[in-house]
């Protein structure tokens, strides 16, 4: 347990080290907004998304995006569901930024390529689980509700409610562990680079 906590602390340090580069901060912010808005759009059902691609004017489309952005940050009231969305979006943003850092920083040998691919898969699985978990299954509005409704008829949306929670929890846990692993790798890279420069001096 103590070792795990230490690894988390080092991972956090690793994340901070990566974010000292403004490029990764900018990337993280963009990815955070992208994931957050995507999850928020899907949480609201299909109306806002369909309006975005309908005959609405450019100004109206911008207004829809701003409304969803505001909702993401609780403009119409913060809820546990919104907080979960923000946390998952943050973990996803950090995971993909850290992944890019790893790909650039590490030597391109076969073992590293294999490891990077594995981490991409983990981050991708986390993102997919997050998307599957979105929506208000309680009112039958979720990505997975229509297909479960087709299979399970009237109890479909109740099953969707349970499964969406399972997916959301799984997304949260997987995303956290992906960030922890990548953050720890980031810490190791920075530590070895500091030692390299110290030796040169």
């Amino acid at each position: 347990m103590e070792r795990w906590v230490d690894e988390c602390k080092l991972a956090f340090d690793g994340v901070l080290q990566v974010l000292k580069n403004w490029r990764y901060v900018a990337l993280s912010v963009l990815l955070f907004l992208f994931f957050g808005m995507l999850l928020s759009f899907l949480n609201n059902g299909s109306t806002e998304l369909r309006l975005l691609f309908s005959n609405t004017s450019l100004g109206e489309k911008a207004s829809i995006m701003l409304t969803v952005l505001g909702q993401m940050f609780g403009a119409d009231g913060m809820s546990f569901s919104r907080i979960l969305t923000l946390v998952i979006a943050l973990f996803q943003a950090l995971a993909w930024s850290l992944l890019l850092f790893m790909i650039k920083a590490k030597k391109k040998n076969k073992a590293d390529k294999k490891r990077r691919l594995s981490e991409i898969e983990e981050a991708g699985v986390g993102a997919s689980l997050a998307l599957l978990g979105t929506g208000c299954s309680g009112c039958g509005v979720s990505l997975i509700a229509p297909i479960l409704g087709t299979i399970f008829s009237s109890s479909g949306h109740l099953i969707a409610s349970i499964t969406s929670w399972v997916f959301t929890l799984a997304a949260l846990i997987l995303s956290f562990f992906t960030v922890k692993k990548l953050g720890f790798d980031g810490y190791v890279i920075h530590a070895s680079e500091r030692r390299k420069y110290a030796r040169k001096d």
Partner: protein
Amino acid sequence: MREKIKVILFITLSTLVVGLIIYNASMPKKPADFSKKAWHEAMTLGKADAENHFIVYTDIFCPYCDDFSRAWAEHESEFKSDYIESGKVYLEYRLTDIISDHSPNAERGGEGGYCAATQGTFWEYYHEMLKKLQEDYHSKGIGVSKTSPKIPELDDDYFVEPARAVAEYATLDVGKFESCMKNHEALPELKQNTTKASAVVNGSVPYFVFNDFVSSGFGGDYATVKMMFKAGGV
């Protein structure tokens, strides 16, 4: 072995997500047997021969359905003038208890709506009920989302109170309403319409059929309502 499992999981989930997004994007379609005849005349606004027949599938205890209804009710005079009185839209609400699996009050709420409709006061009762739910629960963050605290099971008097409020300014016989609720007179029609609605909405409410603009869910305001009507061709 672990790597192979990760690859399979990644490909499977990505395919599932992309497939579901495509499925959902193409899903809300006007059903082939879509009927233009109103299910209950009292749950309509405007003239039946208006240019456009817009339909809203709803449940009184669905928070997003309530958000949609409140959005236009707060701009009622503008809404009615622009869409209803102008003859552009015949708006029909198809009231169901489709979320009764999640809410112990959905059925009684639906019965209340239908009992008021038999006396021609559906809209007055519906808006009084929404006002009451907003004051007692929604404004306090109760019953507003899948993760918020749920509205507890309500007693029968909760559903009669809005009828009493309506009776003060409209012609509604409260005794007749109470009898309708007590004897579940509206229940068969509610259940029949919920079954019919389930085949269309697949568990998703609010569900909108505004000509070719078919969608579910609502998270906006009156500006969003106007955009939806515009997308529906008005």
